[in-house]
């Protein structure tokens, strides 16, 4: 299988701090991949490099075989690379409905239409509503995003990314800060995504990781410490050491 997303010797230094250290990996289409590692390991930095929020110090990134290293963020999205943020990045003053209509409009290159009211774009609205329904957000459809419950905001993060119909989706701790009882809801949404979408999940909750992932990379101090099938990683004593104190469950 050819790689959908690939990096070659990716490095990122913040001054003296090497946040990403010679990372090379490749993901096949439809992967269910988890990226784990202790706090400050460089997971978010890697996502920022992949999505173009940060420019690497050196190394290359390839999406579907094409070099995207120098491409601005928004153009990578158009090529099918979407992400969610560890810390919510939403439009506080817009409603979830408006947010999704806009995300869909952008995907359809209809977001520059400046005459017809948004409310008459049935095509966009119907799809947005279906997505709201799918993610259990329909009850907060018309509320200002800033005022909706945190767990729902996390779901909206995912919904916005899905609205772009991405080929690759990078989920940066989608359940971060969500109470235990609501976490399964977020994972259910992720589990139900079409098999064609390549998924990368960053997550600290090992239970969620092993429920989701078929392959896992462990990132430590910016470098790839280990990678392989989930079952192997779960059994590896060195990984346990890295996660000192954290419980690893058996699969």
């Amino acid at each position, binding site marked *: 299988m050819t790689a959908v997303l690939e990096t070659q010797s990716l490095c990122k230094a913040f001054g003296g701090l090497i946040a990403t250290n010679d990372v090379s990996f490749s993901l096949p289409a439809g992967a269910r991949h988890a990226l784990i590692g202790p706090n400050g390991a460089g997971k978010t930095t890697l996502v920022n490099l992949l999505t173009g929020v940060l420019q690497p110090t050196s190394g290359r990134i390839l999406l579907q075989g094409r070099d995207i290293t120098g491409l601005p963020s928004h153009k990578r999205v158009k090529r099918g690379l979407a992400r969610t943020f560890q810390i919510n990045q939403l439009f506080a003053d817009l409603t979830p409905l408006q947010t999704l209509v806009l995300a869909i409009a952008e995907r359809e290159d209809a977001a520059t239409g400046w005459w017809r*009211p948004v409310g008459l774009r049935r095509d966009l609205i119907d799809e947005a509503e279906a997505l709201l329904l799918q993610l259990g957000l329909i009850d907060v459809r018309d509320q200002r995003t800033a005022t909706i419950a945190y767990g729902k905001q996390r779901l909206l993060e995912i919904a916005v990314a899905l609205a772009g119909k991405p080929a690759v989706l990078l989920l940066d701790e989608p359940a971060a800060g969500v109470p235990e009882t609501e976490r399964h809801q977020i994972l259910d949404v992720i589990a139900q995504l079409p098999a064609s979408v390549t998924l990368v999940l960053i997550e600290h909750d090992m239970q969620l990781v092993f429920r989701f992932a078929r392959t896992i990379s462990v990132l430590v101090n910016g470098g790839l410490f280990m990678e392989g099938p989930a079952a192997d990683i779960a059994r590896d004593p060195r990984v346990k050491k890295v996660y000192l104190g954290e419980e690893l469950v058996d699969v």
Partner: protein
Amino acid sequence: MSALLTYFRPDTRTASGALLAPARWQPLEILFWLFAVSLFWLAPSKVLLLNEIAILALFALSLDLILGYAGIVSLGHGAFFGLGAYVAGLLGKHGLHDPVAGLLISGGVAALLGFVTSFLVLRGSDLTKLMVTLGVALILRELANKFSTITGGADGLTGVTMGPVLGLFEFDIFGKTAYAYSLAVLFILFYIARRLVNSPYGLLLRAIKGNSLRAGAMGVPTSLRLVIIYTIAAGYAGIAGALLAQTSQFVSLDVLDFHRSADVLLVLVLGGSGQLWGAVVGAIAFKIMYDFLAAITPQYWQFWVGLVLVLIVLLGKGGILGFYGAGRDWLANRLGKGGVR
């Protein structure tokens, strides 16, 4: 009758209705425009003031498009106003006397300046934006001063003559044609702006203002999208300046003065930014306040304007319209109907 009712109050239980509701004209808005027209007959002695209000409202509207909707701060929006005024004045002086043609050309030239400078303005932080916009305005003013053979310099540009509007309506010394003309232009541009802010593009602007990182992560080329609105707003401001030049048939360096940029910001904050009506309401309030205060304390009127501004900003976000909205919601709650929006 019920069709009319669903127009004004679309069914907000449906998704499209919820999105449409703010785009629908409300009876109060229609009444406002009818009232503005009726003043032509009701207050013929005030048309000069009304003309100034209409021009200021258009100027503030143009600032609202970039500041209120797109979040682009500017301390030099007067540059486009002044440029439009000079272009219209020069056209009127040198042979093109048709007001509407002059208006379109002036707006076009100002839009062109907006387009070119947008690439400087849109990079960088808010502070950078403030400085670049301020700088552009200062440069323009100095150029107008320097090339006094063309602009008339400190003495102003005289000899501006205007033909009849649409070949039909001669400008009169009372300013009746001027008011009708400015009001018509304001209405048309208000209507277009209203379409724009309720369209997908309007939503996009609010999104970029709210969180440009997220907008970019949605695939939006944010800078490119802002260039468009900056250009449009510059054109709007240019048309406002052109209206002033055409209806007063005179242009002086004053149109490029810093106070123009500062006043329009004040007007918008006073009325409430981020809602088109804020520009109109702010312009009315500002001009009336000015007229009233200048009459009783000619020396110190700015003191009172400053005080009102501070109070408005500290007491409530959203200016006069913010107070209006809060009052309406409070009333709706008291009547047990729930808020309108």
